[in-house]
């Protein structure tokens, strides 16, 4: 079945589904650009649907189903190489969560934090490394190998050195071969980007740096901050345990606001998207 092209806000959208999300963004005054820039991800061409500059993320719109393997692989590569969050919105804009599903690929990050524990809470910052450095570090992590800098030297550490009973002792030894082959494949890259790796992972005096690998999660929802009123993609409270997760982390207010997934503004935007009519050309 061919998707219906639709015009809205000066853009020609490939499907009604995408156009309805554009109406949703427009209603909420979220700045967006549609198919503005394509990327060559190691030979795969990828043109993400939306770029939201205020949210600093890419959005890919999909019908209401699980994303396919290929869709996931593309999103994962884009997040890793761009250093930005990539979301797949699977479902229609006029439905409310959990009827649409939002998946997120968060890029690899390097966290820099003071060695003194007392300062740790507030002073930590995240650094987005050079895309090639991110790719090397992530490939190592995917094989349970952590790269760090000790006394100015590159140090490789193996995770899961103490296997758990469910896997039997031999699995750890069994994966050695795989890790060895990964290392030999990555050795030229490690050599080529040695200086960049050292630069990215060497902390300032009194500070530490730690690599946080790429993560993929689902269970997000659009929400409005109760304090600053910003529209953000936040954790849906029905998807997690505990309260801390749906505070607006980046809120500029002295007391961070709570993320409300059913604020009047949001409900109105869903309704507007549902009722939107488009000219055929």
């Amino acid at each position, binding site marked *: 079945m061919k998707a219906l092209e639709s015009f809205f806000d000066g853009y020609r959208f490939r499907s009604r589904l995408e156009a309805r999300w554009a109406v949703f963004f427009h209603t909420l005054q979220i700045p967006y650009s549609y198919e503005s820039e394509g990327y060559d991800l190691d030979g795969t061409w990828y043109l993400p649907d939306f770029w939201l500059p205020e949210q600093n993320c890419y959005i890919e719109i999909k019908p209401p189903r*699980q994303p396919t393997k290929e869709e*996931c*692989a593309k999103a*994962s590569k884009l997040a890793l190489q761009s250093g930005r969050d990539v979301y797949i919105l699977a479902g229609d804009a006029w439905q409310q969560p*959990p009827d649409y*599903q939002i*998946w997120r690929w*968060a890029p690899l990050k390097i966290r820099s934090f003071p060695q003194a524990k007392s300062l740790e809470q507030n002073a930590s910052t995240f650094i987005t490394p050079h895309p090639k450095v991110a790719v090397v570090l992530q490939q190592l992590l*995917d*094989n*349970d190998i952590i790269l760090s800098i000790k006394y100015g030297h590159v140090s490789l550490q193996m995770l*899961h050195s103490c*296997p*758990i*009973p*469910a*896997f*039997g*002792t*031999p*699995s*750890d*030894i*069994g*994966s050695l071969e*795989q890790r060895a082959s990964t290392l030999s494949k990555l050795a030229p890259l490690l050599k080529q980007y040695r200086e960049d790796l050292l630069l990215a992972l060497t902390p300032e005096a009194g500070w530490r740096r730690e690599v946080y*690998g*790429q*993560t*993929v*999660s*689902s*269970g997000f929802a659009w929400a409005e901050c109760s304090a600053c009123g910003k529209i953000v993609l936040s*954790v849906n409270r*029905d*998807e*997690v*345990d*505990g309260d801390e*997760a749906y505070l607006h982390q980046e809120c500029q207010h002295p007391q961070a606001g709570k993320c409300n997934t059913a604020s009047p503004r949001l409900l109105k935007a869903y309704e507007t998207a549902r009722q939107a009519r488009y000219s055929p050309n």
Partner: protein
Amino acid sequence: MSSWIITSKPSFQTEWLLIPKQENSQIVLSKIAILAQDPRPDNVFKKPLPDPYSMLYCIRAGTYRLFYTFELPYIRLLALRLREQENIDNATLDDLSLDESTDVDGELAPGQEINWHTILTKQGQLSLPLPKTISVATLDSLHVPPQYHSHLLSAHTQKELLNCHVPQNIIQRIKDALWMKPITEILDEPNYVVKDGNLAEFLLCLDTQQEQAARRALDGHGPTQVKGQPGTGKSIVALYRIRYLLERLPISKQPEPRILFTTYTNPLVNASRSLLKQLLGVNIKDVKICTADSIILDLFRLFSKEYPRIAKDGTLSKFTKNAVECILPSESIRQEFLSKLSYDYLLEEVLQVIQARKVTNLEEYLKLKRSGRGRRVRLSSQDRATIWHIYEQLQSQLQANHQETWQQVRLRAEALLTAHPDFSRFDAVVIDEAQDLDPSVLRILFKVCRTPNGFYITADANQTIYGRGFSWQNVDTSLNFQGGRTTTLTTNYRSTREIAEAAHSYLIMGAAAIDAEETLAHVRHGPQPAIRMMLHNEEEYQSLATFLFNAMETLHFGLSMCAVLCPTSKSGKAIAAALRTHGIPARFFPSQELNLDSPEVKVLTLHSSKGLEFPIVALAGFRGSRYAQAYDNLSEDEQAETITKHRRLLFVGMTRAMRMLLVLIPAEATSPVLTGFDAAYWNSDIR
């Protein structure tokens, strides 16, 4: 991105079946989909549990929590629990059922000792009621076929449920549904991998070492071997090997089976057939599954008009006695000869040395190196000449009666195979428990395999009936497993550490010749096995009945999961009858007739128990048997050899036990076979 493989535990599968479908299954599936992308924690949705369980993770799925763990490349789905059942917000781990002392499925905490005195003396208490009533809705959710509903719905106590006349896998599923298992126990369950992307069908998942063994040298230039102690999963590896072999065989339009799977005993052939059916689906048509001897009889059906008439054991013993009397008519000379070599040993020498090695005349026999025969018994030239004459006499008696030994039949089969090069051979031959097959049988099996590369065997050094001198090269010169084509498995999944160590200590106490072995890892723990002396048969029967009843209650297994292993059919039949009079349904099964699905306690001979496993095992019935007597009637050399052989057989019996083992021996026994139970490993009443 890493590539993850989703596997699950049987408990998870049961809990998945039990959740109300409409509201929840989509949510759970979407969570599994996200885990398949990456199970690593994001600390928002996917979180590790608090220490010391930080290797376990959970993700919320609607009103449920999905517990899992992972290690490249596998994700293990463990449990699916209602959020209110499993409160982790408050980190109240007691509620998490992580507490190991909760005994649900025969899992006792490491080092936790059971009271053997109570197990052996506590008299029939009333069985405990079930924690929840079984409903039709539950049975439907668990996909229990309707024909079993009436049996299960009428069960109100544990005993009634455990002994319901329905297949054990169904009882296990209901047990998992009624008693929620602690998650740490679920970790020890076997892993199943989703078959063809369908969440309703799972296949047993091999560990990395087993997986490597199953795939080892698929493109090698010679035969491949998997070694391992009992319980390390050799048989399942052999079955997976067949799967991998089939995947690689080019598609053929021939209707004949292309792979032969064979082993020593009928029970093991039957058990393997049902597993292969699950593993291969319709492709099972490409595999011929039978005992090694039935392949030999097939050759006669195809190529010979003379169908063999095989002499039975009793007939052979009778003929041997006659032959000895005929060759050594003088009573005193005969006794002197027999003091060195027993009738049994003589017959074995004839069958396994003279016939199996195709010795055609006395001169050849005099020069023969008897390396496969165990090296303890030395034979002088005079002895050999006497044996040769006895052999000739035995031969003529067999001919006169138109009978043959199995060894002769095998040799004839081999000749038939050589004479018919057009025989359609198998692309691959997979042999389980090869150490139990006669070299002549292995030779035939090697010949029915098209190329040496297709020959795959599993073998166990400790269980071997051959002496140390046995060599694969004796079977066929091209049968060698060097060059990286041997794998040794080192994780015991069957027995608890306590049972495996006790059995091993018994084996080495007898100074039995055992191969240098790798250190074994054990997945399960449990109580020490026990050894008890019995004054008379009635005491033994009473103790057995009490033990079986109490062990069943303690470990929550049905009586059909218990086995009593005996040295002889005679003692087996007596025990089965005695247990029935004590109110325990029991049946003696000859090797050909074993039905693992029957509801009774299985009474078997030690011999026919090879390759099988049971949660609860007792070794009994030694009074009056060969094993209980002193071995004084044998020469010193033959004594040592026979004792070693008998101890190995008892070791085989002990290692059939998965959770609980009891050995009952006659108090008056003087046999060296029934000694050597180290008190460090055995709960013993022997002073």
